[in-house]
């Protein structure tokens, strides 16, 4: 009698062990681990020009004014990217004085990437706003230079180095 009871207990225990093993199989089917990552984007402003040096040659006269006809440059592209807020692009010549009139216009500014300011006249080496309202954007525009002279200025040549800068407004 005792032996039979012992067998029953043993079988019950075996059943429990098998069930426990099965339960472990059912519920222990995943494991996780975590990593902490630090993400950061610094403010950055980049700017570049496509196209080589610009040469303006005044070779004709305007028959109506008798003044030399202005010379216009070919298309040069200015491209930029800024993830800052309310930035602007300025232009500055390295010449403190200019014999001839040099004018710069930013044309076809890509949508949403800033607004062209008024034409820049490089009469000295002061800094001029070229494009304003640059915020979180990548943009481009065409740079159009115009060189002009009057008869009184005579002949000659001069070189300007123009520096473009993205800066705070």
């Amino acid at each position, binding site marked *: 009698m005792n032996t039979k009871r012992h067998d029953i207990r043993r079988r019950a225990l075996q059943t429990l062990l098998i069930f426990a093993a099965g339960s472990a199989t059912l519920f222990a089917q995943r494991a996780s681990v975590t*990593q902490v990552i*630090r993400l950061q*984007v610094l403010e950055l402003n980049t700017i570049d020009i496509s196209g080589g040096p610009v040469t303006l040659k005044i070779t004709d006269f305007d028959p109506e004014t008798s003044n030399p006809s202005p010379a216009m440059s070919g298309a040069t592209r200015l491209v930029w*990217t800024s993830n800052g807020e309310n930035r602007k692009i300025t232009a500055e010549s390295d010449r403190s004085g200019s014999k001839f009139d040099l004018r710069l216009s930013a044309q076809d500014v890509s949508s949403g990437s800033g607004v062209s300011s008024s034409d820049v006249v490089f009469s000295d080496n002061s800094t001029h706003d070229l494009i304003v309202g640059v915020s979180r954007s990548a943009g481009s525009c065409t740079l159009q230079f115009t060189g002009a002279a009057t008869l009184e200025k005579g002949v000659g040549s001069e070189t300007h180095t123009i520096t473009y800068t993205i800066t705070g407004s």
Partner: protein
Amino acid sequence: MKKTIITLALVAASSLLVESAVAQATATQNLNLAVNAIYKISTSGNPGALTITTGTPGSDNLTSVTDNSTTYSITQNYANTVKITANLDAALSSGYSLSINLASSKGTSAGAVDISNATSGSALSVVTGINRGADAGQMITYSFGANASAGTLSSTAKVVTLTLTN
């Protein structure tokens, strides 16, 4: 007399044999062996900060940065179809992206997987078909990207969860 002595000796020897036979006994034990399903995964630590510092003029996509300084290790005996999923604690804001690439020698890596919008309810598979066994020291590569139009991002901690599951 001599015959009597021999007879007594034989009787005594027989008694010894009988006693010896009666002394044998056996016992049995039942051993119940089980190996539970085992899933283990760990990493070597946290990656370094991912900081974007530059971009290409005229492009909204800033130059992405990567980190492959950490590794993961796994052990599992469940099946040859186990996988690893990855998810963030919360989705990234629009304009930022984070991808993860887990190398694997026991399974098939999904390559760089964009987990920018993968949360606990939408974890993405990064390694599949993992065979039983162990795979130690496999490289984890993170890549962080951003658009200029998304603006700057101050240092932000994100929690990536890697889950070994069937």
